[in-house]
Structures are given as structure tokens and as C-alpha cells.
């Protein structure tokens, strides 16, 4: 990719602006997400209430929620004709626009507030209950004694990982950003390829994007990060502080967060249902293409992740980390630049999308499978050794059966991620090759919002269904 970029090493002034915007919007998004997450996580950590489990589950949902669907939901709430502006109009305040930098940041906070909350909640729950008891018996201030040191450990990690995620924002910037003041590097890459067909500039931009993401990924490795994939969120620590005013603060934090997260989803359902009756032609073909890409990516990811986890070593670590630095669009650009002289990109759009999606999901899948393999080996490895189970027979009799749950979970995540991915497909697809997310973007671009909402509901249902089926499949018959 770099080689292809050579010779065209000049950036338009707009590209420097894109770089600047990418950095500061990611900083702002991460800061807002973390700041908003702290009161929400504190409330979840110290309150017991009906629906708490549901709310925690909901906090995991944005991970498998297609970005483009969420964007449509946010437009439905915060957009020009949205619920918020209707309400503001009633009291005579002028319409707010969601398009521009504040829309990009809003969408990023929507996606990352739940992640930040889970990370910080994990930190809160990691404080042993005995410490709270001790603090209560001494009458010591819980905040300064226990919570502040915990936050100092957890918040930098949460901030760094969200900063990294926001750096690679493409779908949000494509739909809500744009223009000189709200173009990310990824969006600039896309425009360089699709509109200017300047492959050299695209490759250079992709190299820049990879550089800043790799630097951020290294920074993320350096900070301690709790694992939110597992469970354990159902614990509420017994506390002796926090009556009176703080009760009200917690209630407000939880209501605001739940409303902020739920309202856009509710709007998609409300607007999508009528849209379902009027879906554009070709939507089912697009859905089928998305499904095939998702299933292909899932199969590929599972095989690769299993191979990585079983082989181990630095190659495994590196190939598990690289996709964190190289976003879907950066990888897509590389493949586009390499493939362009050989084949027409549109001929390989779907396989390339599946491949890139598989690579994107690989770090997550490997992180899910790794501990499970270690656990199976720790518990049953010696028995397997003494019976002479090696290679394929070990995989068949020991590992695959023990890995059913994590395999199902990883497959569900990959399928849902791939189903909703809008990155590489936007570069490669011709007219007749749109996947469901790309179809939605095209409908939104044509201001056919009713149909876009219908497509969004379809996409959301398919993503959730895929996740549910795979995850369920891993749990079935798991009595052993």
C-alpha cells in the first residue's frame, strides 16, 4: 500500500483538516463518554432496582448494533424532523441540526457510553465488599478512600480504548459528518477513492490513519484494561453510604442514560414498522448478500481464531492486535489499491468484505476463545495427555466440546459485526452489490427515510437473530 502511495506524496490542505478533526473529535468523544459513564456506573454499582439486569444487558447491545441503524435512530430523535426538535419547536426554540461535528460526537457518545459504563462498572465491582464494610465501620470517606484510586486505575484504560474506537469512525462520519469541518481521515480516504479516484492520496491517507491508530493501540496495550466480555455484573455490593441526595443523583443518571440509549432504538422500531410494508426492490437480495458475507466472515474468523489461540506465540499476539490498528476501511483501501490493477474491485466486493470483516472480528474472537482454551487445558489437559489425545483427536474430543459456549458467543458477535459493517463494502460495491447497510446509506442519501427506517429494522432484526442463534447454539445441551 505504501509502495503504491509513493510518488503521490502530497496532501490536499483539506487532508490536514481531516487529520486534525479525527484527533479532536475522538478526544472529545472519549472524554464525554467516560465523564458521562462515571455517574451511571456508580449508580449501577450501588443500587438494586427492578430492571437493573436488563439495563446492564442493554449496555452490551451497542456492540452488535449496526452503526448505521443507530445513526438513523439518532437522526429520528435529534434530527431536523426528530422528536427533540418537535419538542423544542413547541416552546419556540429553533431547530437543532444533527449534521456536523456535534452529530459525529453525539453518535460516538451513544456508542461508547455503554462500553465506558461497563468498563468502569467492572472497576467498581472489583472493589472487595469487605473494603466497603471496613470503610463503613471506620466512618471513612468511601469516595476518596476506595473509589478515587479505582477510577484512577480504570478511567485511563476506558478513555484510551474509546479514543481508539472513535479514531476509526467511518460510518458515523459518512452519514452525519462531511464537509470541511467534519471529515475524518477515513472519510477522506473514501472520498479520495470514490470521487477523485486518487489512489495515491488514498493510500497515503490510509498509511496516516494506520499510523495514528497503531500508536493509540500501543497506548491501549500499555494501560490496564478490565475484561467486560464475561459476566459477573449481577453483583451489587452492600453499601452503607449513599442515602438522601445521592439517591436522587443516581436516579437522574440512570434515567438519562437509559433514555439516551433506548429512545433512538424505540424510534427505529416506531418508524421502521410502517416502512416494512414499503421496502424498495432489491432489499431482499441485499439482505441475502449481507447474510452470506456475515456467515462467510464468521466461519473464517472461527477457524483463524482457533488456529491463533492454539498456536500461540508472538505471531498470534501480533495478528490479534494488528486489526485493532488497521480499521476495516484501511484494510479495504490496501486491498483496493493492490487488487485494482488485477481485477475489477466490484467483482470481488463480497469476498473482500467477508475477509476484512473476519480480520476485524479476529481480536475479539481470540480474546473470547483464549481463556476458554486455557481453562480446558488446565482442567483436562493432563488427562488428555495421559490418553494420548493429540492434534485432531484432542481438538475433537477435548477442545471443541469444551469450547462450545465461547465458540457460539464469538460466532454470534462476528456475524452481527459483519452483518452491520459499513466500511470496505462502500469502497468496493458496484450498483448491484450493495449489502443491507450500504443500501440503507443510499436510501438515506436519497432522503427516503421511511424506506431507510424499514431497512434499518430489517437489518437490526437480522443482526440480533444471527447473534441469538449462534449464541444459543453454543449453549444448547451444555449441561456438562
Amino acid at each position: 500500500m505504501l509502495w503504491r502511495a509513493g510518488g503521490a506524496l502530497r496532501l490536499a490542505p483539506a487532508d490536514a483538516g481531516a487529520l486534525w478533526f479525527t484527533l479532536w473529535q475522538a478526544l472529545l468523544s472519549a472524554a464525554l463518554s467516560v465523564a458521562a459513564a462515571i455517574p451511571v456506573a456508580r449508580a449501577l454499582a450501588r443500587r438494586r432496582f427492578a430492571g437493573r439486569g436488563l439495563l446492564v444487558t442493554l449496555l452490551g447491545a451497542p456492540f452488535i448494533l449496526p452503526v448505521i441503524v443507530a445513526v438513523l435512530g439518532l437522526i429520528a430523535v435529534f434530527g431536523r424532523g426528530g422528536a427533540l426538535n418537535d419538542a423544542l419547536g413547541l416552546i419556540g426554540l429553533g431547530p437543532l441540526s444533527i449534521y456536523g461535528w456535534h452529530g459525529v460526537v453525539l453518535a460516538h457518545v451513544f456508542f461508547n457510553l455503554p462500553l465506558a459504563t461497563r468498563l468502569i462498572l467492572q472497576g467498581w465491582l472489583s472493589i472487595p465488599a469487605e473494603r466497603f464494610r471496613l470503610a463503613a465501620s471506620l466512618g471513612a470517606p468511601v469516595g476518596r478512600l476506595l473509589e478515587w484510586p479505582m477510577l484512577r486505575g480504570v478511567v485511563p484504560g476506558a478513555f484510551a480504548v474509546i479514543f481508539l474506537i472513535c479514531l476509526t469512525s467511518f460510518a458515523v462520519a459518512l452519514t452525519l459528518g462531511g464537509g470541511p469541518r467534519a471529515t475524518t481521515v477515513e472519510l477522506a480516504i473514501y472520498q479520495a477513492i470514490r470521487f477523485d479516484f486518487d489512489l495515491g492520496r488514498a493510500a497515503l491517507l490510509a498509511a496516516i490513519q494506520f499510523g495514528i491508530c497503531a500508536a493509540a493501540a500501543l497506548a491501549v496495550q500499555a494501560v490496564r484494561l478490565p475484561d467486560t466480555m464475561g459476566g459477573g455484573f449481577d453483583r451489587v455490593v452492600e453499601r452503607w453510604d449513599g442515602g438522601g441526595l445521592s439517591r436522587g443523583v443516581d436516579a437522574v443518571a440512570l434515567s438519562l442514560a437509559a433514555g439516551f440509549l433506548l429512545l433512538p432504538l424505540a424510534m427505529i422500531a416506531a418508524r421502521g414498522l410502517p416502512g416494512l410494508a414499503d421496502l424498495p426492490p432489491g432489499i431482499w437480495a441485499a439482505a441475502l448478500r449481507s447474510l452470506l458475507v456475515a456467515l462467510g466472515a464468521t466461519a473464517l474468523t472461527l477457524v483463524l481464531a482457533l488456529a491463533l489461540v492454539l498456536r500461540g506465540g508472538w505471531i498470534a499476539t501480533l495478528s490479534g492486535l494488528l486489526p485493532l490498528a488497521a480499521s476495516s476501511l484501511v484494510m479495504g483501501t490496501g486491498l483496493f489499491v493492490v487488487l485494482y490493477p488485477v481485477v475489477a474491485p466490484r467483482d470481488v466486493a463480497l469476498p473482500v468484505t467477508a475477509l476484512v470483516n473476519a480480520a476485524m472480528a479476529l481480536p475479539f474472537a481470540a480474546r473470547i476463545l483464549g481463556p476458554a482454551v486455557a481453562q480446558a487445558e488446565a482442567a483436562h489437559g493432563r488427562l488428555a495427555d495421559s490418553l494420548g489425545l493429540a492434534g485432531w483427536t484432542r481438538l475433537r474430543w477435548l477442545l471443541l466440546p469444551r469450547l462450545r459456549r465461547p465458540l457460539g458467543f464469538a460466532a454470534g458477535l462476528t456475524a452481527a459485526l459483519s452483518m452491520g459493517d459499513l466500511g470496505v463494502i462502500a469502497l468496493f460495491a458496484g450498483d448491484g452489490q450493495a449489502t443491507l447497510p450500504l443500501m440503507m446509506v443510499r436510501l438515506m442519501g436519497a432522503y427516503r427515510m421511511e424506506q431507510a427506517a424499514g431497512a434499518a429494522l430489517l437489518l437490526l432484526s437480522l443482526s440480533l437473530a444471527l447473534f441469538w442463534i449462534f449464541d444459543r447454539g453454543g449453549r444448547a445441551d451444555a449441561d456438562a
Partner: protein
Amino acid sequence: MLTLENLRLQQDDFSLAADLVLPDGGVVAVLGPSGGGKSTLLAAIAGFLAPAAGRVLWNGVDLTPLPPARRPVSILFQDNNLFPHLTVAQNLALGLDPRGRVTAEQRDAMTEVLRLVGLSGLERRRPAALSGGQQSRAALARVLLSGRPLVLLDEPFSALGPGLRAEMLDLAASVLGGAGRCLLMVTHDPEDARRIASHVVVVEDGVAAAPQPTAALLADPPAGLRAYLGR
């Protein structure tokens, strides 16, 4: 006949020396304080721990370079002796063939062994659907079926109640001792040793001592063992 020839085991800053011969056809108990190296000794014989020096020989054949599955050794651990996701029949089949394929004759042998340990008709059960005693029997059945002459028991019955444990020990001794075989059993209860073991190997202070006849040893234990036994 099991020979430990100038064996020296090293794990971090723990070390254990053994230079001894176990008699043929016997049941030998390994006795000693916790953390003394009893399990380490068994792990080395089974091939899970490479010795720092010395050799492990079975009937004069050097086992030291062989991986666990290639040794004439079956081992039962404290737990996890059955794969929880496989049925009893599948677990037993893996004792015969790592690919889990069994011939008709082997299937008959499985039925016979299950009858011997009192598990007839439970082939299709998973371990979770068996009681603790039944799980131990199923693991014993696999050891029996694999027919390896040297059997190592690393306190596999320690989770069972006293009555059931005695029953399992008697069963193990009756089917796993005998000519051409050797049963080596870790225990921290001298009663277990008195019940089935002809000899005792005392492991303490970094040394596995040569086997002594059980009755004589327990009647007049050396100083270290005496302290451990609380006498």
C-alpha cells in the same frame, strides 16, 4: 518392577530425590506431609514432569524419554478423571483408542468391565449424571480397560466419604494389583495404607525413601512421619 534410578526432580526451589525399586505385583502407598512432593513424584513417573537427573525404568526399559501416553502408566488425579462432555462409554473408549473408535470385541470388554465396577447400564450417562462414587468407578473402569500395568492413584477418592473410599480402595487393590502389575497410591491417611498397601514409600524432607513393609513402618514410624501422624 518400577525402578527410580538416582531420580532428582526440580520445581522452582523445591527438589525431591528418589532412588528405589518397587516390588512387582504389589500395592504401594505414598505417605507424607502435604507439600512434601507426593504428587510431584507421581507426575514424574507418569511423564508430566521431566526429571532434572536420573531415570524411570519399568522392567528395565527406560521410560524417561517417553511422553505420558506412550508409557505403560495409567494415572488418576484428585479430580477431572473423566471428560464431563462425554458419556461414560465415550470416556472408556478413549482409554482404548485416542480416536475413540472401538471394535465389537472391545465393546464387549467395556460391558464386562462396567459390570465389574457395578456400573452396568450406565454407558450413556454423562459424568454429571453420576454420583461421586460412580464417577470414581467409571474412571477405574477406564484404567482397567486400558490394561496398562502401572497404575498411579493421586488421591482420586479423597472427595468420597469414608465408607465409599474404603470400598473403592478394595476394588482398586483387587483389580489393579497382581502379578506383573504395580499400584502406587498417594494418601495422607495411614488407614488407607494399612487397608490395602503391602509397602509404604515415605516422602518428606526432599527425599522419597525406599519402600518399607506397611505394618512394621506404621508400628514404629521414623521421627518425621511420627510428627506428621501426630504420635
